[in-house]
Each structure stands twice: as structure tokens, then as C-alpha cells.
């Protein structure tokens, strides 16, 4: 049986995502996929899915959903926000079974940017080029390649039998204060020593020009070398830090252009790109240069963290009691209920 979820309030930043597309950058199509793959994996593992199963990605706007048909097991993970089931706050980073008629509200996150909603079995959509991920600029993925509108519905495989015991997992870390690790290059030699010192020694902030294509950063201008700021276009990667003529760096993200003609002073390492993605306009950013060996070690660590997720699930009962108990001692029971994800 097919369940049906209606989006009764949505925001332009809401989209369907999965692990994205591979193999089409040679045709000019970037990969898309979840901006925070660890948070997507966490939501999926909670409900027993493969780590890259289709999920709803909520940006800063949040959203409201109503189960119109069927019953499904859901979980949210990612940036901390208030979740309300039929008006009552519930914790994130846990499973919850929603029956027909249930309403789930996902408030805009208190910090960070992206929250993921997974359903057991995954949301159903027609893949294009191997993925259901919305790539808005290309007009593909999601529903007809467009942003959601209130009233849109999504299908999911409804569960027939009684829900298993609910479970929970530690919240996905945002590490908001830690520096974002980068590797210099591929065009660090297009910048002066002072320009590189500016990148490594300054505090930048995420500007309001930040979306799934790229995050433009505010801060001191980065000085180009004598060669100027135009290069013959070459390929970009997710995490490329390109610096156009005004000296303001732009970090290219999941839906980026696949080639570009501005020199790329550095590249965010793969393990830290999700941490950058979770920063929001106004959040500070400092960069730290690391070696390829350190970047690979971080990538392996992340791979292990995703592989370990199933073993870190815990039964929900007991844990919440402990949390409430601890919170009660501090006299903040209500806040504890609202505390997660």
C-alpha cells in the first residue's frame, strides 16, 4: 500500500534529495544530493533505510506536513529545531510513527541550516539520471524539477504491521565553532602571499547570497596575483573556493556550475563540507589549511562514522526518561522536550 504525505506549508528551500548523481559532470550537470550527507544518513538509518535513500531536505524555512493516507515511520535529523506532532513538541533524532491524519510541523532551525526527514522505505519519486535529487537550475528531480508548492503530495511505502519500538541516536554534530579545513589549490598560485594570508587569517561570515549552488562569504577582500582574476575555465568540485574580481570568496556547493573561470584559491575538504553547509547567513567562518593526508584521514573517519550509525541506535524508552530526569534536576523539563534534534 502506498502512503501519501501532503506538504501543507513549504518554503523554497525545501527539496527532495538523495545521494545525488554521479557521472554527468562531463555534460555540465553537477551532482546535487543532500547538503549534509551525514544528517541525511542519520535520518535514514533511524528508520532502517539505506544511507542515501530519498529524504526531504528542509532549509531555513521549515515546513508543515500532513499524512493523508497510510501510516509510516519517520525520523528527523540535522540542525536543531522544534518539531511538533499534532501540536505537541517531540524530540528529533528519534523515530516516530505517523498515522493517517497526523500533522508534523518542522520549525525553522534554531541554529544550523538543514534538517532531513526520512520515512521507512524512502519517499517515492521518479529518478532521472539515477537520482531523485532536485537540481533546480537544471529543472530536474523532485516533482517535475521545480520547488514544492503547498498542496504537493509525496508517496511513501505505508507500513501494514505494528511499528517496532522507537529508537534514537545522538544528534548530528554541527561543530559551529571549529575551523573549516581546506586544502590550498588548485589555483593558489593565482593569489599573492597576502591574499592567502587573508584567507587563512581572517574571520569571514556567510552572506545572504547562500544557496545550494554556492555560499558567498563576507569579509576582507582576497588579493589576486599579477595574473588577475580571469582564468580559462576549468572544472570545479563541491567545496571549490573561487574568488571573483571583487575578492569575495564563494564556496561552490552541491548544485554548482561544473566549470568556472575564476581562480580557486582552495578547496574545502570533503569531510568538512557538510559543516560549512550547516552554517547560515551571519555565522562566522575561519579556515585552516591541512594536508591531503589529513583530508583523507578525515574522509575515512567520516566513512566509519556513517558505517557505525546502525550500532549507535538506542531504544527510545529509558533514554528520554534519563534525559528528562537530568533536565528536571536543572528545572528545565519543558526545554528538554524541545531540545532536539
Amino acid at each position, binding site marked *: 500500500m502506498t502512503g501519501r504525505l501532503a506538504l501543507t506549508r513549504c518554503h523554497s528551500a525545501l527539496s527532495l534529495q538523495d545521494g545525488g548523481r554521479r*557521472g554527468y*559532470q*562531463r*555534460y*555540465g550537470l553537477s551532482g546535487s544530493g543532500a547538503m549534509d550527507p551525514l544528517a541525511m544518513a542519520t535520518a535514514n538509518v533511524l528508520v532502517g533505510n539505506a544511507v542515501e535513500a530519498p529524504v526531504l531536505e528542509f532549509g531555513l524555512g521549515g515546513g508543515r506536513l500532513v499524512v493523508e493516507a497510510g501510516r509510516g515511520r519517520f525520523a528527523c535529523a540535522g540542525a536543531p529545531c522544534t518539531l511538533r506532532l499534532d501540536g505537541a513538541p517531540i524530540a528529533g533524532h528519534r523515530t516516530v510513527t505517523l498515522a493517517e491524519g497526523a500533522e508534523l510541523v518542522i520549525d525553522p532551525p534554531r541554529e544550523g541550516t538543514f534538517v532531513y526527514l526520512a520515512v521507512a522505505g524512502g519517499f517515492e519519486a521518479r529518478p532521472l539520471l539515477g537520482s531523485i535529487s532536485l537540481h533546480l537550475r*537544471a529543472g530536474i528531480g523532485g516533482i517535475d524539477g521545480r520547488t514544492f508548492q503547498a498542496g504537493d503530495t509525496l508517496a511513501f511505502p505505508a507500513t501494514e504491521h505494528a511499528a517496532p519500538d522507537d529508537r534514537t541516536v545522538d544528534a548530528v554534530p554541527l561543530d559551529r565553532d571549529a575551523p573549516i579545513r581546506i586544502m590550498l589549490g588548485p589555483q593558489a598560485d593565482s593569489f599573492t602571499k597576502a591574499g592567502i594570508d587573508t584567507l587563512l587569517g581572517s574571520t569571514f561570515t556567510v552572506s545572504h547570497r547562500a544557496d545550494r549552488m554556492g555560499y558567498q562569504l563576507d569579509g576582507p577582500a582576497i588579493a589576486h596575483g599579477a595574473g588577475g582574476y580571469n582564468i580559462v575555465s*576549468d*572544472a570545479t568540485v563541491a567545496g571549490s573556493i573561487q574568488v571573483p574580481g571583487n575578492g569575495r570568496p564563494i564556496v561552490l556547493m552541491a548544485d554548482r556550475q561544473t*566549470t568556472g573561470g575564476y581562480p580557486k584559491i582552495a578547496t574545502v575538504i570533503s569531510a568538512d563540507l557538510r559543516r560549512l553547509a550547516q552554517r547560515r547567513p551571519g555565522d562566522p567562518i575561519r579556515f585552516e589549511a591541512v594536508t*591531503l593526508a589529513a583530508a583523507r584521514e578525515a574522509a575515512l573517519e567520516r566513512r566509519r562514522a556513517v558505517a557505525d550509525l546502525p550500532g549507535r541506535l538506542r531504544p527510545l524508552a529509558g533514554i528520554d526518561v534519563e534525559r528528562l530526569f537530568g533536565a528536571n534536576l536543572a528545572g528545565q523539563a519543558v526545554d528538554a522536550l524541545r531540545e532536539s534534534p
Partner: protein
Amino acid sequence: MAAPQPRLLWCGDTAITVEFGERIDPDATALVLALDRAVREAGIPGLIESVPTYRSLTVHLDPCAVEPGEIESALLALVGPVPAKTAPRRLWRIPVVYGGAFGIDLADVAAHHGTTPDDIVSRHAAPEYRVAMNGFLPGYAYLSGLDPSLALSRRDSPRPVTPAGTISIGGVQALVASIAAPSGWHLLGRTPVRSFLPGRDPVFLFEPGDAIRFLPIEPERWDELDRAAQAGERIVDGEIAS
């Protein structure tokens, strides 16, 4: 020519760029396309995809499955000498309506070069181009082979929107655009051909290395060809060229 000495540039931990030059140069493009083919045929474990550009090949990889030293050696071992001019695998004949509302810069480009629009059209439609790279947006094909006498630096102010299918030139490059997008290039015409069309098989038409010829057509044929193309019909064939 001496064996090429490409630069290897890591782009974070998930990609490495093999750079054959910093300028647009036919030898560099030929080396890139030859290496791209060799990399795809070699099936190196851990490699995800390769992206050719005018002057470099970027190889995306799984950092957990590939040793940096090994991938560097494997890529360098696949770099050959500059290939002799090879026949393209496919030749596409692209119908283009030049000038007027279809190519709003044609008259200005002609005036800049002190000639007539018809002369610009015949010079633009004369060569057999190669797809040097697809990039920027899905299905945008950047060509090599533009008549150097047509070279013209980009407009001072880019236009916020240019139509789907725009045929344009910028610097020494020629472009077939797919979807509407901002552009600072000079718009000579439009083609009804969809180089990128979701839902059609294939979604993308042009492979890097394919040959392209432009076929001037009358504006009267636009509506019919455009409708057919939007419906997913093949209004152009990629002939086997060799």
C-alpha cells in the same frame, strides 16, 4: 613535439586535475580528450568520473578507495604524445536561425568587424567545430575551431537572461547553449536543438570530442523544428563520422 609535462593539481581530497596548459590551445585540448578516453577505458578503481575542459582533465575520485601516489602515477602513465588529428566519432549538423530576434548581436558583431551580417554567418557556419567541453550548465557545449577573425572579447555587461538554444561567441570560443541563462557573450542565432532535454533518451546529445557543423536555416522553419525538438524528436542526427 616533446612529451607533454602536465601539472597535477589536487582539488581537495576528492579530485585531481591534470593540466596541460593555462590557455586555449588545440594541442592541449587534443591531449585532454585523449587522456579522457584513456582514463575511461582503463577503468581505474575508485575513479568516479572525468571532466574534460579546453586545457585540463579533472578526475573525481573516492578518497577512501584511492592512494594519492598511485592515482598520480596511473594518470601520468596514461598521458601520451599529442595525438595526430583524429576523426571525430560523431558529426552533428545543427540547424541555426541567425540574426534578427534569434541573434540580436549579429548586426553589431558585423559592424564591429566592418562587414555584413551574411559574411559573419558564413564565417561562423564554415568550420567543422569540436566539442572541447560541456560545462557551466547542463548541455552547454563549448567548441573549438572558431575562425580567429571572429574573435571578440565579451560584452562589458552580461545579459541577465539569454534564451535556450542560443548560439554565441566570446573571445575565441563558440558556444551552443541549452537552457536559458545569463551570458556576456555575443548572440548570433538560435538552434531548436535541445542539447539537454530531461525525459528524452539520451538526455544529453554532445560528447566531448564530437564534431559540430552549423546549418543556417530560414526563420520560417523555427516553429515546426522547435515543436518537434521539445516533443523529444530527433531533429538532428549524430552521424557516425568515420
